């Protein structure tokens, strides 16, 4: 009956703490709680009723048995009395007609007497009276010393003697007390011989002896047998146990009669004790059940309260997680996803149902960055994730790539055991895109500024040069006009020619000024480490490379000797060559966009090599590649490689290119090692 309560108490193994709690069912109605109590009460009542019924039935049965036994007992006694009566009446003629009991021919009579006085018979003494009522003899002989009080006058009972003589059949006397707290009674058996009364044979019974002899042991174990006189006083009793039970039966003790009653009291039955034990254990059990129920209820209430608290806490946390813009993802120790929050789902485009339970590789891992993602994954599972997070490229369901900042923390369960990893993921692609955009804008702005400056410079230069040239031209035309018209004036002509010369000088000065301007950007040589410059250059172009999906393989020779160079210029060349390489691969399949950068020492030169997998350089382009203002790019100015070569020459180095086996171009930028 307590089964439904027990089941709720059972420990259900919780999968992971992060799994959503089962929605708590509505609180059970009030009566739900009283149900077990009602059941217990009903149970106890039924049991009590059953016990009572059994008890009653037992009592009935006991009573019936008692009555049966009593009747049997009475029957037994009556039978014994009758037998005694018969024996006494048989003895009578012998005793009364014989002269003396002790005569020799009385042998058989003696034997009979003895037999009649057998302890089993209940008789303790036999007397025989003559017709006059006088005691003729007694066996065993007696004195009157055993008689007490007034009974001395009535032994043997004259009333019984007269009545038996009159009636001509055995008559029993009153019971009378004798010494030793004994009670005796007599039976007077009249003896007739030839229709003449010859005397009586009196048998004396001891009530106590009789009870002792006539009640069998088994009977006395069950019952207390007692005999009461007409005053209700108990005169003899036989019992081995104390009678506790109120169950008793009383019948008149016939044939003695005279108000003697045979009282049989049932001893306390063993069954009663058992039923009491049963009853009490039942009571204890019921109490225990009620108590445990109450305890259970208290426990349940506490549990319910705790559940409710947990539920609201869970709801609170869930609302918190759902409102987050940060993706949350939990994994177990094997890397299986055990939980994702809605922001994470929004980020990657897969639903929580689809993601939970998945093992790596995850569907949102970008295929091209699989190696690195695996690396990060094993790093996290190994517990070596950097605390500031790690940036990794992922893929949305629609194939769009995005950069995510991943921060992992160990997931500890209630037993302080690590059961996995909890990761928060922030989509930083927007941020990166903004940065990249800003950088590009900056770059474009600078390029534009450079262009504007260069354009302005060129324009100013053109205008400035135009002025003296135009003046010269005009002077010249004027002179020609004069010559044509014939009105030539020598002085005038001389003056104009001087002016022409002056303007030509002016033009020369302008050109000298330009040269001086160019000379202002002279290189500043210092001892530099080529590898460091290359690394710095790669750092500069890396965001751009990532944006274009170009992988840069850096293979730098270690411990290169230093070179004497202008680091800014060398960096300019490196960046230019790397950019060109990336530009060359804009139509190359994404998976093949690898730019190989190497440095090495060769015959006193340090060689920096940039190898792309682009279309290669057609011969007609190759001829003009280093020419100024030649470009294959839409936005190009055609100065890049030209400047690069100028820088190379300035450093007494070389810039050359060759076709790359397997497609693409290799640019070699060599610089002489510093002679120390």
């Amino acid at each position, binding site marked *: 009956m307590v089964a439904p309560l027990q089941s709720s108490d059972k420990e259900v193994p919780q999968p992971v703490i992060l799994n959503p709690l089962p929605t708590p069912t509505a609180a059970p109605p009030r009566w739900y709680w009283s149900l077990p109590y009602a059941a217990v009460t009903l149970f106890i009542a039924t049991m009590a009723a059953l016990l009572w019924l059994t008890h009653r039935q037992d009592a009935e049965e006991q009573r019936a048995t008692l009555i049966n036994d009593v009747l049997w007992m009475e029957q037994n006694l009556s039978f014994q009395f009758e037998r005694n009566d018969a024996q006494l009446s048989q003895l009578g003629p012998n005793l009364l007609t014989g002269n003396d009991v002790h005569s020799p021919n009385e042998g058989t009579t003696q034997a009979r007497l003895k037999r009649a006085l057998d302890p089993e018979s209940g008789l303790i003494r036999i007397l025989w009276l003559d017709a006059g009522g006088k005691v003729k003899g007694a066996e065993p002989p007696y004195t009157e010393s055993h008689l007490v009080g007034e009974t001395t006058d009535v032994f043997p009972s004259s009333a019984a003697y007269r009545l038996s003589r009159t009636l001509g059949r055995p008559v029993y006397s009153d019971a009378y007390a004798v010494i030793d707290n004994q009670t005796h009674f007599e039976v007077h058996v009249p003896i007739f011989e030839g229709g003449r009364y010859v005397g009586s044979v009196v048998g004396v019974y001891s009530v106590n002896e009789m009870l002792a002899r006539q009640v069998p042991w088994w009977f006395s174990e069950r019952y207390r047998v007692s005999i009461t006189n007409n005053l209700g006083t108990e005169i003899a009793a036989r019992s081995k146990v104390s009678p506790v039970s109120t169950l008793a039966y009383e019948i008149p003790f016939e044939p003695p009669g005279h108000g003697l009653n045979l009282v049989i009291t049932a001893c306390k039955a063993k069954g009663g004790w058992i039923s009491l034990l049963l009853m009490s254990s039942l009571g204890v059990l019921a109490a225990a059940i009620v108590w445990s129920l109450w305890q259970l209820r208290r426990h349940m209430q506490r549990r319910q309260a705790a559940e409710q608290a947990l539920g609201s806490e869970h709801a609170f946390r869930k609302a918190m997680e759902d409102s987050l813009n940060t993706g949350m993802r939990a994994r177990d120790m094997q890397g299986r996803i055990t939980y994702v929050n809605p922001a994470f789902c929004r980020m990657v485009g897969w639903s929580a149902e689809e993601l939970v339970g998945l093992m790596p590789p995850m569907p949102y891992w970008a295929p091209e960055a699989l190696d690195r993602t695996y690396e990060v994954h094993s790093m996290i599972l190994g517990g070596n994730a950097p605390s500031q997070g790690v940036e990794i490229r992922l893929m949305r369901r629609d194939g769009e790539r995005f950069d995510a900042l991943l921060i992992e923390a160990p997931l500890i369960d209630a037993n302080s055991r690590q059961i996995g990893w909890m990761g928060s993921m922030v989509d930083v692609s927007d941020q990166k895109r903004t940065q990249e955009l800003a950088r590009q804008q900056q770059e474009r702005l600078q390029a534009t500024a450079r262009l504007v400056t260069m354009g302005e410079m060129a324009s100013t230069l053109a205008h400035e040069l135009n002025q003296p040239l135009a003046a010269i*031209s005009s002077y010249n035309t004027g002179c020609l*006009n004069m010559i044509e018209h014939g009105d030539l004036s020598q002085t005038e002509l001389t003056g104009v020619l001087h002016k022409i010369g002056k303007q030509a000088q*002016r033009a020369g000065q302008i050109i000298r000024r330009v040269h001086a301007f160019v000379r202002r950007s002279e290189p500043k040589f210092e001892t530099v480490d080529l590898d460091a410059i290359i690394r710095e250059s790669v750092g500069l172009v890396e965001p751009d490379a990532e944006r274009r999906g170009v992988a840069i393989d850096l293979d730098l020779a270690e411990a290169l000797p230093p070179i004497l160079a202008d680091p800014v210029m060398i960096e300019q060349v490196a960046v230019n060559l790397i950019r060109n390489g990336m530009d060359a691969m804009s139509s190359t399949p994404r998976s093949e966009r690898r730019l190989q950068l190497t440095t090495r020492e060769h015959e006193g030169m340090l060689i920096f090599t940039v190898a792309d997998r682009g279309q290669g350089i057609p011969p007609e382009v190759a001829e003009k590649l280093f020419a100024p203002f030649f470009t294959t790019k839409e936005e190009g100015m055609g100065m890049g490689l030209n400047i690069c070569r100028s820088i190379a020459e300035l450093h007494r180095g070389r810039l050359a290119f060759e076709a790359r086996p397997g497609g693409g171009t290799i640019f070699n930028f060599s610089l002489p090692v510093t002679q120390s």
Partner: protein
Amino acid sequence: MSPSLATPFAHIVDDDEAIRDALSWLFRTRKVESRAWPSAEDFLAAWRPDWRGCIVLDIRMREMSGLECFDALLERGNTLPVIFLTGHGDVPMAVGALKKGAFDFLEKPFDDNALVDVVIRALESNARRQANQETQANVAGLLAQLTPREQEVMQLVLVGKFNKVIADELNISMRTVEVHRSRVFEKMGVRSAVELAQLLAPGRD
């Protein structure tokens, strides 16, 4: 030497002295009188509405640009033809100026005699315009002498109506129309309706 109404000049506005001097010399060899101005500001300060001739304006100058100078001249009602000298890349600007009424533009480097040819054409154009303006001024003076009635009659004569029709329309006698007509001819200094029409035709070359 202050420019008078009678003398047409080619006004050279350029901030480069050599250019000014060279152009002046060039113009002189083709018998074109010129005046040179070192800046647009100087030119605008000296400018008078009754000047004759043309303006050779360099677009790119240090202070006020040629275009700004041109706009200022337009505002002041300048009638002198303006020839722009443009450098490389200033062509769109020059075209814009042309649409606003500039006479012509020449891109540097230019053929110097071609410039002189343009200047001479501009001077002629200015001279014609001047003459035209004078005639217009005369006609206006003549018209002012006519009475309102005479003007009414003249308008009707100009559209080619006969005296009879004019008399009917104005509700006067034919005789009166004839009197008015002869007085209009007399006052306007013409002998026939055709001459009158020619005199009053707008935009006469």
